């Protein structure tokens, strides 16, 4: 069997962030794949909540969007979106939220709004969607994004979602009752956050990736946790699940 690709390693690393019985607020694509992988391996009782108002979906196909009809058919519950946001997310019932972003800073704050000036943007991005509230209200968040220097800037062009704010106890000082970002997973490695400064630090490199390659794609002086680890390669059965059952057409993992 060929070794895991970098995007497969990203999916596997994301799946490892799910604990059994976690209630996960999830979008489509990579996060969805990661949760389904976790459910097929170490976390069979993890539950998915889609912000479109679906709990306990059992789709008969890979959904293209979080509003796919296959998510409603056969779900445990389909409810008004207001209930997903108030009773589930704001009600404190979400253990993990997955987020992506166009930019992330060293404290895990995210930009999904604009590149450039807000009034005259060079690129208009989608905006907050559910991200600002997921980042604020899920017990912890896991951030998935490709590693590029312009996506890891010293300063965000716009702060759409708050992570660890300005570090230290600043998130808590804002009134947060949740832990904020716990992991950042890219196609090059896995990051955590230092317990006291709350600054992002590299925990592991994916197999075959060098520290210099990572540093070249980060816009600030990157902290590295010692000893720097290598992302554990997935079991063959895990790879088989990904390739043959969960994403057989390679829609998500390429």
């Amino acid at each position, binding site marked *: 069997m060929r070794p895991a690709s970098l995007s497969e390693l990203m999916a596997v690393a994301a799946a490892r962030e799910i604990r059994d019985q976690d209630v996960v607020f999830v979008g489509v694509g990579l996060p969805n794949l990661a949760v389904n992988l976790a459910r097929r391996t170490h976390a069979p009782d993890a539950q998915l909540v889609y912000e479109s108002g679906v709990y306990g979906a059992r789709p008969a196909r890979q959904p293209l969007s979080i509003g796919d*009809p*296959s998510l409603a058919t056969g779900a445990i*519950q*389909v409810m008004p979106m207001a*209930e997903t946001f*108030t*009773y589930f997310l*704001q009600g404190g019932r979400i253990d993990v939220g997955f987020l992506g972003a166009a930019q992330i800073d060293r404290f895990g704050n995210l930009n999904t709004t604009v590149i450039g000036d807000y009034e005259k943007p060079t690129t208009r991005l989608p905006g907050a969607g559910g991200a600002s509230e997921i980042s604020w*209200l899920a017990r912890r968040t896991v951030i998935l994004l490709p590693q590029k220097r312009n996506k890891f800037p010293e300063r965000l062009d716009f702060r759409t979602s708050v992570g660890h704010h300005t570090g230290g106890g600043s998130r808590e000082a804002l009134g947060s009752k949740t832990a904020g970002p716990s992991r950042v997973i890219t196609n090059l490695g896995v990051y955590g956050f230092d317990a006291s400064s709350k600054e992002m630090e590299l925990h592991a490199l994916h197999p075959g990736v060098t520290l210099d390659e990572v540093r070249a794609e980060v816009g600030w002086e990157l902290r590295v946790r010692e000893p720097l680890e290598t992302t554990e390669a997935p079991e063959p059965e895990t790879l088989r699940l990904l390739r043959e059952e969960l994403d057989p057409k390679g829609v998500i993992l390429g």
Partner: protein
Amino acid sequence: MSARLLSMKEAISQYVDDGDVVAAEGFTHLIPFSAGHEIIRQRKKDLILCRLTPDLIYDQMIAAGVARKLIFGWIGNPGVGSLYGIRRAVEKEQPRPLSLEEYSHFGLLSRLKAGASGLPFMHLRDYDGTDLPAVNGSIRTVECPFTGESLAAVPALRPDVAILHAQRADSSGNTQVWGLLGVQKEVAFAAKKVIVVVEEIVSEDVIRADPNRTLVPGLVVDAVVAEPFGAHPSYAQGYYDRDNDFYLGWAQTSRTAASLEAYLDEWVYGVASREEYVEKYEGELERRLKPQPNLSPPVDYGLYT
């Protein structure tokens, strides 16, 4: 995470503690009488009981002495008159004093809504010019940051235990209800622990075949108890009718402490379970209260493969 299937005796013993804030909800429909009776049998005490309308279930529980406080919107026997058990507690402190904290229906459901939503308060247009805020310090005001107008505000209510009756659930607690919905969803999401009592346990496939009908997922339910006729003399839409004769007769039964206690002796303490209670009726409930069927037409969710 998902519920366990328990007997009522186990559910009440494990999830209802003395002194708890308990909300046994259901607006006329699906009132969890069998759970109330088990709370009486287990002689719980010092409960703080919450309900929009205390109804006969709280009249019985308060007359049995399980409560020290009542949080409510309207106390009465709907369409009939007074609840004498509660009146004796309030007017004569029998069998023990009962303190009251009162709102309107809108006010109390707003408290549950805030509790379910993870908000510290909910605002509503109510109470201006009334004496209610003067006797209840939990009715305050909040100013709109846009218009400057003042609105009533009530604090979130998060009961220790919510008890709901429902038509059906699967063994994981995924629960479906039809007919009047009351504040069932709000109270389930607001409470720290939830007991669901159902007419029947169905397979998960039945739930998944109509997901828009689901009231609450098993995620928020701690215990599921299967007890047919568990809502009697209240009702379960499609399963049995409200026992209006019982409600009408309660005016007489509850009129004196002695006659109310005689009822409890026979129908609550005198039986070990809802099963025995139903047997004691010797088939009368089935004969008298079963409606003719009236099925909803199916809707097509479609198979998307």
